[in-house]
Structure formats: structure tokens, C-alpha cells
């Protein structure tokens, strides 16, 4: 696979490490959320046949974490964002 890095351009997927569902970025508030909310956030994730937003780490590169939108059926990648930008937007929306 080729991931179109927002800063570095197209890079081979071998340069990256995969983590999983980008919903991991939507971490509950530790001081208020409680065990149930944390459990749901960490363990109960969707496993879609289709578009999936997921976290990839450019370990053999610039160490950016990326949010990659990939079709799990075709491996087509439709969007690649810097995870930090996504995380900042998420913060602002809270």
C-alpha cells in the first residue's frame, strides 16, 4: 500500500506502524468519565466492512501519527490527515 503523507507525499506502507481505530483519539475525561466509559472507548469498537478511519505511525520517517481513511474491502485510501490536526479539531469541538 501507499500512504499519501500530508507532509512527505506518497510513502510505502512498510515505513509505517499500524495502531487501529482512530476513535482511540476520542479519549474520555479521566476525572469524570468512569470505568464503564473507558471500557467502551477502549474495547468496543466497530469493525466496518468499508470506510475505516485508523491511526498509522510513520516510524521509519518523520514520526508523524496519521489518521488514514481506508476502505477495508478494497484498501483504497481516500484521506490522510495529520493526527495532531485532527486531535486539535477534536479538542476545539468539545
Amino acid at each position, binding site marked *: 500500500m501507499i500512504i499519501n503523507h500530508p507532509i512527505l507525499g506518497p510513502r510505502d506502507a512498510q515505513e509505517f*506502524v499500524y495502531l487501529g481505530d482512530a476513535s482511540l*483519539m476520542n479519549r474520555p*475525561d*479521566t476525572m469524570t*468519565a468512569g470505568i464503564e466509559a*473507558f471500557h467502551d472507548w477502549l474495547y468496543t469498537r466497530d469493525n466496518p466492512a468499508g470506510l475505516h478511519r485508523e491511526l498509522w505511525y510513520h516510524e521509519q520517517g518523520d514520526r508523524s*501519527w496519521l489518521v488514514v481513511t481506508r476502505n477495508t474491502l478494497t*484498501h483504497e485510501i481516500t484521506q490522510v490527515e495529520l493526527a*495532531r490536526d485532527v486531535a486539535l479539531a477534536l479538542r476545539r469541538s468539545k
Partner: protein
Amino acid sequence: MTQSHRIAGGQIDRSTTLRFSFDGQSFAAHPGDTLASALLANGVRLMGRSFKYHRPRGPLSAGSEEPNALVELRTGARREPNTRATVVEVFDGLQASSQNRWPSLRFDAMAINDRLNSFFTAGFYYKTFMWPASFWEKVYEPIIRRAAGLGSLSREEDPDEYDKGFLHCDLLIIGAGPAGLMAALTAGRAGVRVILADEDFRMGGRLNAETHAVGDQTAASWAAAAVAELASLPNVRLMPRTTVLGPMDHGIYSAVERVSDHLPEPLPGKPRQTLWRIYSARAILAGGATERPIAFENNDRPGIMLAGAMRAYANRWGAKAGDRIAVFTNNDDGLRTAVDMASKGVDVVAVIDSREGGDLLPGIRHLRGAVVTDTAGRLGLTGITLRQANGRAETLQVDALAVSGGWNPNVNITSHHRSKPRWDEGLLAFVPGEGGPSGLSVAGAAAGVMSTQGALHTGQAQALAVLESLGRLTKPADLPQAEDAPVRISPLWHVAGGKGRAWIDQQNDVTVKDVVLAHQENFTSVEHLKRYTTLGMATDQGKTGNVLGIAVMAGLTGQTIPETGTTIYRPPYTPVAMGALAGRSRGPEFKPVRLTPSHLWAKEQGAVFVEVGNWLRTQWLPKPGETTWRQSVDREVLATRRSVGICDVTTLGKIDIQGTDAGAFLDRVYANTFSTLPVGKCRYGLMLREDGMVMDDGTTARLGPHEYVMTTTTANAVPVFRHLEYVRQCLFPDMDVQLISTTEAWAQYSVAGPNARKLLEKLVDQDISDAAFPYMAAGHITVCGGLRARLFRISFSGELAYEIAVPTRYGDALIRRLMQEGAAFDAVVYGTEALGVMRVEKGHVAGNELNGQSTALNMGLGKMVSRKKDSIGMVLSQRDGMTEPDGYRLVGVKPVDPARAISAGSHFLEIGAAPVAANDGGWLTSVVYSPHLNSQIALGYLKAGDQKIGRRMRAVNLLTKVDTEVEIVSPHFLDPMGERLRG
């Protein structure tokens, strides 16, 4: 032996004669020959034995789909089994031998299996080797293993090199037949970067095997001219001997180039094979088609081959398959073989055409509505029996039979991403279906366009479409006139009615009877059929037999062929040598080796090294006279605790953390608090995963208001750094904090023991007295009169200890200086074994305890998890199951009788309890021999262990047969109050 079956014509260089041997016998060949064509030219038809029944076999095909003619090439370390004689290029001195036979190819004792064939039907192994269970490992498996497999490995290391490479182009064309050549000419002339890959050593595909014309030239001449023009274009890369194995994702294609297989050995500096990764957003598959046989009794004898292969041997290689031949066909293409062979002067005794009515070939006995029902000839065909349209049987004396059951487009690569091929009722074959790999189009016979004219046209059309997508709209060139015959075929899969065996998959000896049995036993889905009968397995993956098998099953179930469907196509298209997949990653280059700064010094001293991840660390350092590792390790431990020992701890991960939020960031990633740590101090940190389990531990020092340096365990240096970047970028993007791994930047040594300070005072430029640099102090210092360094007063051994770091390039000088100054104190270097002994004596956890399943509470460190702040893992470390008061707790263990052995992995059992899972109390994680306690000691996780100190239990290991009475003690075996640390 003379080339008795060599005839005129063909694309071989008769001006040069090559010598090669097969089973020790010497033969002549010419450049351009394959091993199969050369053997046929020499009148040799018998080339192999089948897998199960050891039936004598000759080549069925003239290409990579070959199921039968599998041979071993070369001798010694270069011996290679299961090569297809049909694609092996002959070179002078080639040594080939047959396989799967004993004692000889002509007389094979295992051919007894053929007589016993009623036992060896589908499912034989599943049904026979079931019971008794105890027979499996000792009796059945060795027998099966001996009987299985075709060739044998040399068991020597491959002397050749294999390489990997990367290529980029605008258009990859797979296959260099008429469609591929026309596509390459169209795109190449337009100036785009083209790669044209073909598995054959001579490009041209079927153009080299047919006699018809393209324009005003022969097909082969047109192909040669096209290849010459392409070779002259700088933007076109021709890759013969290159098989495209399959499409990966996003326009990446895997291909293997057999750089040196056609040579006795690779030229200097050249690899044997290269595995290419070809990046091309656009590709055209022009992979042609593969002919399939018809199933009839004894259709597997040497001399029976596919019709297209027989005329390829005659037309391309000047080799006739026999003197008196017959042709059995259900389609017009088979008739070409009769015409071509007759024109070569071969006696064509009859054409047995299963189709009723229609035109007859002039000058040849052409029987319509007839079928071949049986054949004769043990080691090679001597005759056939046919049944005419009127039902009359007739026997013909022939030494070769050409069979054509129609052609299957090579759809494989279009289906590697799970696109299902579509059944074409006109062709009676599967053609590429919808939804193939993105960017891949198909031309020529692979697309089901079977005529030469059609191939040229679709090759050009697909290339023009690619050019248009690249913004290079081009006017098409005029196409030469070429053969444009329609496909005329009637279904005939299996000649029914006989009692004998009719082969479908010749390599795996799958016959019509096996398919019938699979149906009878309800293995009717194609995937079940494949596994139950082995249809379509092994080196040829059923390229000739699969569709036939599917059709026979469809006939049995009453479903149509498209309803029955195909098995899933997967890469690689043809088998790939493991060496090519490994490339250069073998032997010492299998993975990188990381050397510590003291490596050279330690090597000079005769150190024993141990692999720790990619690192090589000193395991122990034997002195003269020491004969066992224990002597060395005991000495290193005792000397360190008595005076001073030095250990290279560079391998531990080091991460610099800077920024105004560095302290707040550490509060998030560690369960305990670091923002309150004073500048110039270290603290032990416990890092949890979000699920509440311990991820890693280590000390982190604060070197300035906004500057920390974290250490991680050696094993987790990379994962922890990745985790910190994740927390920084994905969870707390507002924080002002920057990270950099400095593991390689600093050479770091632990200096431990009562004389550690005295030794360091000889090197360090500053005051490091206990008052000036107390326990857990940290800071920037200089050594040896000005070299910048870092000093940390931390201890893993339990002794007065420091870790001193200098820039890596000074690491070698520092170990030599420490040992030079340390001579006054009898300083020793200790390795990872002594390190392990001392940390167990002190009760510190390490990798065996940090196994990803343990919590802070398990380790006795539950109080370290602060509930007053947000940290990774804090919430879920408090969930049910993690906080039980009688859960596992870290304990120390020692045998009641110090002479008795204990072993890591042993389980805790109450005295008198049976060794069953229900009585399991926990396990021993780490066991060492303590020279201070003169006994083995251990750490372990014991249920409610903190309430069992002083209790006697058993440590039982059923594998090592150890059952020892032990005493549960505090994990701190030595200096529990930590007085040594603060000395």
C-alpha cells in the same frame, strides 16, 4: 544419442551445439531449447513420475503451467528440485535428473501404488491414518513424510545471492505476446515509461509457436521486429525471464526476474534472481491463455500432450513429439496442430473431433463425432482406442496424441483481489470479471479475445486508453493484418463410460473417480473439492486441470459451471524460491546487529555475548581458569557487592523530553507524579497501558525546569517512544512538549558497589560526595577535565550506584578509563547474568515480571498509581479483576533445602495438593543462583502472596520434573532497608 526427433525450422540456434545430461545420459541441444524441447528432440518422452501413483509422465505443456515434467537441476549446493523442464533453458553442461522414483525413472518400485490405486482415492489420508491416535506421531507421520513431496533439497546453504529491487513506470505490461507487444509499441512510441515483463526468455508468446502471418511477415518475425523496436526505445524496459507474481495494493506489482537461472552459475556480482517491486498506477494484463486437456481413460501417458504444446514444440523448437500422431479435440484450435504437424512431414493418423458435423480437414483423416476412449503404452504412448460416431471402436498405433479441450484465459492476476471471473458460454471458459485490481486492464487472450488480430487490437486499444488517462492522447497506428478466426468449440470435459481412471489434475493424480467420490461424500463446493481431492494444489496450482474438475463436479451436482464457480486465485502466479523472497536478509544480514560502546573492549577481554533484541550485550566475562558460566557470574556478583562493578547499560532506551509542559506530559504517561520532581533529581516511574496493565518502567531525571530524560527498558525502547509520540500528538496536542530518542547518542555505564563513588571521583570533575550528590541525584557534569557527561545516582543492583553517560563516541575510552582507574579497587565488568542475579536479590522487576499481564498491584507497587491526576491507564487499573485483594502478588521464593533446584515457570502448589490447574497458586517468573545466600532464589507471582510470607509451598514444574518445597519470602532478599543505596 542423436537428435532423432529434431525437424526443420524453429527459433533455435543450430550453429551451436550444447551438451547436457538427464539422469546421467548425455544429450545434444541448441541455444533456444528448453530442457523439455531438447529431450523431445532426442526422442525422450519419459521425464517424471506422478506424485501419488508414480505413473510415468512426459510433458503435458510447453510452459509454466506444466504439471508433469518436474525435474531436479544441477548438483551439490545448487541442486534445485521441482523445476519445470518446459521452461528450463538448456545451457552447456546442464545436469538434470528425474525425481520421485526409485531406483530409476524407467523402473520405479513405488509404482506399486498405481496397482493399489483403489486404496489411494481422495480422502485416503483422512480416512486411513485416523486411529489409533498414538500411531500418529511415531508411525503415520514419518511414513507420510517419506512418501510425500517430489524432489529433495540439497540441505546445503544456497551459494547464490538474491536481491530485491524497486522500479517505477507509467505502464506495466504483463506478457509479451501479440497483445502485450502491441500495447508496448503503442505506449512506448508515445514516450511514456513502459515496463514489459514476460516469464519466457524469448518474447512473443504464441507468435513464436504459430505458423500464421502478421502483416507480410511470419508471426515470429513480426514479434522479433517489435521486440527490437522496443529495445531501441529508451523509455521502455524489457524484462524477459520475469514473472509478475501478482498485484499488491495501490499499483504495486511483485515480480521475480530469473537473472541467472539460464547460466551454470551467476556472473560475478550478479544475483541468481531478483524480486522486483514495480510501482505503476496503470497496468495491462496480456497474459494469454492456457490450454486444458480432456479427461479420458489413461490420458496421462508420456506422448499425450496439449495440442498447442505439440505444435509449439514443432514450430518454435523444431522438435516433433512423435512420428505417428493423432489429435483429439473439441474445438477448431486443435485442428491447427493436425495441419501444422502434417506440414512438418509428421504422419497425422487421425483427427478425433468430438463435434458432430461440419467441415472436414482436407487430406487428413478427420473423424467427426468421435472420442478417444483409452490408450496403451506403459512408459510411453503406443496406441489409442477411439469410438466413432457410429459407436464402432477402433485402435490406432500412434506414439503421440495431441489433446485440446479449449483454452482458459489466464485471469489469475485479475482475480488476485477477489474479483470473481465470469463464465463465457461462447468460449466455454472463465474470463475476467468486474472489479479487478484498480488500474489494471486486460487485453488479448487473457481478456477472452482469442484471435491474433483481436489481441493486436485490444492491446493497442488498452494502451491508448492508458495514454489518454495520462493526458497523452495519441492517434492509433495502423494494425497489421493477422489471423482472426472465431472460436468454435463444443463442450466435452470427460469421455464417460469407461471403467478405468481418467486424469483431471495430473500432478496430484486427481481422476474423475476422485471427483465422483468427493461428490458422493458431499464435498461439492469447489473449495472443499480442492482440499478433499488436492485438485489444483502444488506447483502448478491446477492451471491445466481446475476448470476440468469444476466442469465434472458441475455435471455431478446438476449446477452450471458458473454456479459451481472457481476456487480463490492467490499470488504468486508461479512458485517463487524462498531465496528470492528473503533477498539479502539471510545469515548475519538477516537483521541488523547493534553493538554497545564497550563491545570492542569486551571482545578483547573474551566476553561471552548474548542477543538482546538486535543488541549484543556482554552476558559474562570469563577470567582464566573459570570453566563454567556460574563461576564467572558468581565472581562478578561478589566482586561488585564487595567493591565495584561496571555494566554497560547503553541499551536501555533514553528519551529527552523538553518543553514548558514536559512535567505535565510525564504526569500523563506515568502512573506516578513527575511535575513535582525537583530539578537535579531522578524518580522511578511506572508506565501503564490504557488497559491498566504495566507497560514499562524506568527512572526519569529532571535536568532543568523544562528538561527531563526518561529511561526505558531495553526491550521497550522503541514501543515506549512510539507510545509517547501517540500520547503527545493524538491525545494531548495542546501541550508544549518535544521528544527525541537519544538511546544511541549516549554511552551509559552503571558503576555499582561500595567503592563506586571512590572510583568515579577519579574521573568526575565535580564534587560527588553524598552531601553534594545524594541518592537519586541527577545532573550535567564533566569528566576527565571537561568532557560533557550526565550522572544519575540510581541503582538496579541495590548497591551504592551511579549511571554515567558520555557522548557515544567516548564510550570506548570511558570503559577503558574506568577499568584502568578501577584496578585499584579490583573493579570488574559484569554482564547481563550478574545484573539479573543482583536485581533478583534486590527484588526489582524486569522483563519476566513485566510480561504485559501484570498490574502495579501484582508487583506490589499499587500505591504508585496516583488517583489524583489524569494518567494513561489509571481508570482501568481500578476495574474489577484488577484490584482483588487475593490476586497475584510479587513474592520471593527460596528452596527449603538450599541444595534443591527450582526452575522458572514452576507453579506454586500447596503441600500435598495435586498438580492440577485447579490448585495452581501462581508461578515463578525469575530464578537465579545467589552467591550470597548460597542457594537458588526466585521471584514469582503468587495468589494473595503478600499474605503468605513465611509460608511453605511447593514449586512444581511438570516439564522439567521439578517438585521442590519452597519458602515464600519477601522479594527483597538483600538489604531490605536500602542502607547500601544511601551509603
